[in-house]
């Protein structure tokens, strides 16, 4: 078992309704989960709860056997570093692509030069080395999304969450991202949680398909 949601209730400050109501679910190792549902049903909220970016109002999140939000702050970091969340709208720092990809490694204490070499290696492996020196402000939405996914992969997380990774991007980049997702499922021991409103994507990638409706979660497959 990787992450378990136990009786989660969540709302945003000022909102007078629950976004998620009594949600419980167990995410197991090395499986691919796809969350289906239209915009505004709480997919991103659920993803950010699992990513430990949001704290539930009620309920617990059990991460590798520990009740995360009851852990002292200094113990949380090592758990947080096993989980990476990729935003629906890619967020890149000012600077070049290589630095952005290396960022997670640099944060983990890898020497800057080594991190940049590793970033270049992964770009070469994916035939994307032409992007290495590009300034992030010149990237298309699809390229930026690709880079933010690669930035997450290079860290080798145990749990990778991709929020609408195929939204807002053109067809050739969609293919590239799908290839990366297939590669992740095949070659990496990682649990994937992907949100989408595209049923065809869900069918191709998912071991389990989850549907959010009226704040509750149910298993479709």
């Amino acid at each position, binding site marked *: 078992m990787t992450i378990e949601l136990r009786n989660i209730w969540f709302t945003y400050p000022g909102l007078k309704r629950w976004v998620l109501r009594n949600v419980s679910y167990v995410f197991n190792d090395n499986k691919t989960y796809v969350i289906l549902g239209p915009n505004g049903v709480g997919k991103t909220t659920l993803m*950010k709860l699992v*990513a430990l*970016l949001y704290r539930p109002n009620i309920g617990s999140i059990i991460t590798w056997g520990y009740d995360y939000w009851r852990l002292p702050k200094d113990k949380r*970091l090592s758990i*947080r*570093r096993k*989980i*990476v*969340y990729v*935003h629906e709208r890619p*967020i890149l*720092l*000012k*600077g070049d692509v290589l630095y952005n990809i290396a*960022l*997670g490694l640099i*944060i*983990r204490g890898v020497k800057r030069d080594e991190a940049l070499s590793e970033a270049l290696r992964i770009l070469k492996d994916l035939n994307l080395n032409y992007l290495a020196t590009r300034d992030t402000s010149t990237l298309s939405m699809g390229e930026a999304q690709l880079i933010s996914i690669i*930035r997450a992969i290079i*860290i080798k997380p145990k749990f990778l969450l991709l929020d609408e990774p195929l939204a807002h991007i053109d067809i050739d980049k969609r293919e590239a991202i799908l290839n990366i997702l297939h590669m992740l499922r095949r070659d990496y021991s990682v649990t994937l949680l992907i949100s989408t409103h595209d049923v065809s994507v869900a069918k191709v990638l998912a071991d389990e398909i989850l549907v959010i409706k009226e704040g509750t979660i149910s298993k479709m497959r």
Partner: protein
Amino acid sequence: MNEVIEITLRSIYVSGLATLLSLSISVPSAYYLSRNSRVARVIIPILEALIGVPTVFIGLVLYMLLSTRGPLGFLKLLYTPCAIIIGESILVFPLITAITYRVMHNTWITYGELAITLGANEKQTLMLIAKQALPGIIAASIMGFSRAIGELGIALLVGGNIRGYTRVLTTAIALEVSKGSFEVALTLGLILIVTVLSFSALSRIIERWYGL
């Protein structure tokens, strides 16, 4: 001519140090407020109201504190450049903090979650946010510096306008006006404006140079 250069350099030195002193407290304060919205909701309106506080009032309060019979009189800071630096840093603190808070709050919304999800600890998150917010912090600093170098009340009351020691551009202008030397006063005023504009231009150059 030499005295004008000396007064100009002293003005830059005093106001520059006051801005740096304020920045050293404003940036961590703004970061803390950007992470604690409930506290920010109370503090930021107060700081914004304090931006317009008359400089002569700060000067007066500081004068009373630093005068020989005041509670801080033993420090013997009255009529020293140090007193002006402290006064001006108090003056610009609300301005720099309020602007830096806005910048950091917006930067936090965009980059805070990214830093956390990439595994940054508290210090790394602060550094990442500060780096992304740097152009805004530089802009806030320039505004603070402009406010500090252009104020008169504090420099006059706690500096004393002592020739060769605490005389700065604004107190020199006030003195020349009181003597009826409007030409000299106008020249000093022009130097003041050119200095402020030069620092603003310099900050733009630095921003472009470093690709901020």
